[in-house]
């Protein structure tokens, strides 16, 4: 099973049971954190170093004044053009044979650059270990031909995983069947994510869901332009100095025998 996979999240089937959130913690041995009641079932309030997937609870009022409860499983989108992989100085973040973005925690040096390169705000920092953590799509389970813990736990079929083309076909078929504002989210940006949503509502209705996610411009300038230019400009200077030496020549001191004629002027 070494082919590009996509995890499909069909939000129209999500009941916010949060089985995936717990299964993720259990499989990855992530401890719980003490939280406060913020007036929402959403708990913890955001992704954390020890909460790699989170069901967001959102009360949404549509145009006719009806209130709907929207659920969204948030977490790493496993981008093809992944900002985190682009900036990671030690290759701790890397693409696997399945297309997902995995993390070798031993290599992480806690520079936090990935936190600023990710368009989805996924990598989270743990000050106690000075390292970054995020979902790796249960890479070791995929290697063992097992489903990711979240997919395995999902009782409604909202979570599925499979070959990229099959999952995308399924996603579009499902969005069409739902009709209305339903759409597919994920395949159209950052060269396609390996987590794809079927959204029953318009994408801009969902909290914390970027409408046009892309790697920030500064990150592109840094890694695509200045990084190679740093070496090229230095190389050009060395070549220029050599050319200067063989064409114009050095600025030689005036001929003078300093040992004897030092005090002559």
């Amino acid at each position, binding site marked *: 099973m070494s082919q590009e996979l996509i995890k499909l999240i069909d939000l129209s089937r999500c009941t916010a049971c949060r089985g995936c959130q717990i299964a993720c913690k259990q499989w990855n041995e992530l401890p719980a954190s003490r939280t406060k009641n913020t007036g929402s079932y959403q708990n913890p309030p955001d992704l954390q170093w020890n909460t790699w997937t989170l069901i967001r609870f959102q009360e949404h009022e549509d145009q006719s004044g009806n209130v709907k409860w929207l659920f969204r499983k948030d977490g790493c989108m496993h981008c093809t053009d992944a900002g985190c992989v682009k*900036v990671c*100085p*030690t*290759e701790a973040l890397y693409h696997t044979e399945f297309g997902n973005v995995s993390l070798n925690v031993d*290599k992480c*040096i*806690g*520079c*936090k*650059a990935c*936190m*600023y390169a990710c368009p989805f705000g996924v990598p989270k*920092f743990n000050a106690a270990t*000075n390292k970054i953590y995020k979902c790796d799509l249960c890479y070791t389970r995929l290697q063992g031909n097992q489903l990711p813990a979240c997919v395995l736990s999902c009782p409604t079929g909202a979570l599925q995983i499979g070959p990229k083309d099959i999952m995308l076909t399924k996603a579009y078929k499902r969005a069409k069947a739902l009709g209305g504002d339903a759409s597919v989210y994920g395949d159209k940006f950052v060269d396609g994510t390996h987590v794809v949503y079927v959204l029953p509502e318009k994408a801009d209705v969902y909290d914390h869901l970027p409408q046009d996610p892309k790697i*920030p411009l*500064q*990150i592109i*300038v*840094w890694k695509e332009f*200045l*990084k190679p*230019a*740093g*070496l090229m*400009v*230095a190389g*050009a*200077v*060395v070549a220029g*100095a050599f050319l*200067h*030496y063989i064409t*114009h020549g*050095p*600025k*030689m*001191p*005036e*001929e*003078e025998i*300093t*040992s*004897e*004629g*030092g*005090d*002559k*002027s």
Partner: protein
Amino acid sequence: MKKGMIKATRPFERVVHWCLALSCFLLCITGMSTMYHSLNFIGAVIGGMANLRMLHHYGGLFFGASLLVAIGIFWKDAGRFSSKEDWPWIKEAGGFLWHVDDIPEVGKYNPGQKMFFWVVALGGAAMLASGLIMWFPLSFSKQLVRTMYVVHSLGFLIIFAFIFVHLYLVTIGAPGSAPAMFTGWVTRGWMKKQHPKWLKEMEENGTLEVYGGKGSNKISSS
């Protein structure tokens, strides 16, 4: 040192120069080792990339302190341009790029060196400020931190390129310059070629120190 050589720098100036130069070298090596994956192996030498990152941070603090002292001591002679004196030299590029019969004479530092001073001062300060924000990014806004990555890598591009200009000039580009930063003594021939006006000023002020000489009075009278 040979008899008749001229004292160009004070020991304190040389110490500050080498604090700045060696910490800059360390920062370039450790910085490049995090920028380019193929240089990650340098981290292994000191027990991993996390140690290398710390070395870069504390090396940066040392560099920043050295930079402040360097700006303090070189500001007076290298920090200020004088259009009357510097402009003729700039128009001829100091005789470095094409043939110039009579290179316009300038004081202790020529405009090229003054430009170098400003690149190091401003570039160094930008590296220090952006580096500190990158070290503690969680205290700042996302857009600011992202912009600092650009500032830091652009600063590296400029400073790294300047290092090679500097190295070229003090070795084969203008032979006789390097001793100014090692022993502090240079030859009179070098002084007459590179800093004729400075030499005259020192002779006139009686501040010229000649190795093995009996004092500046004798020099200025000859």
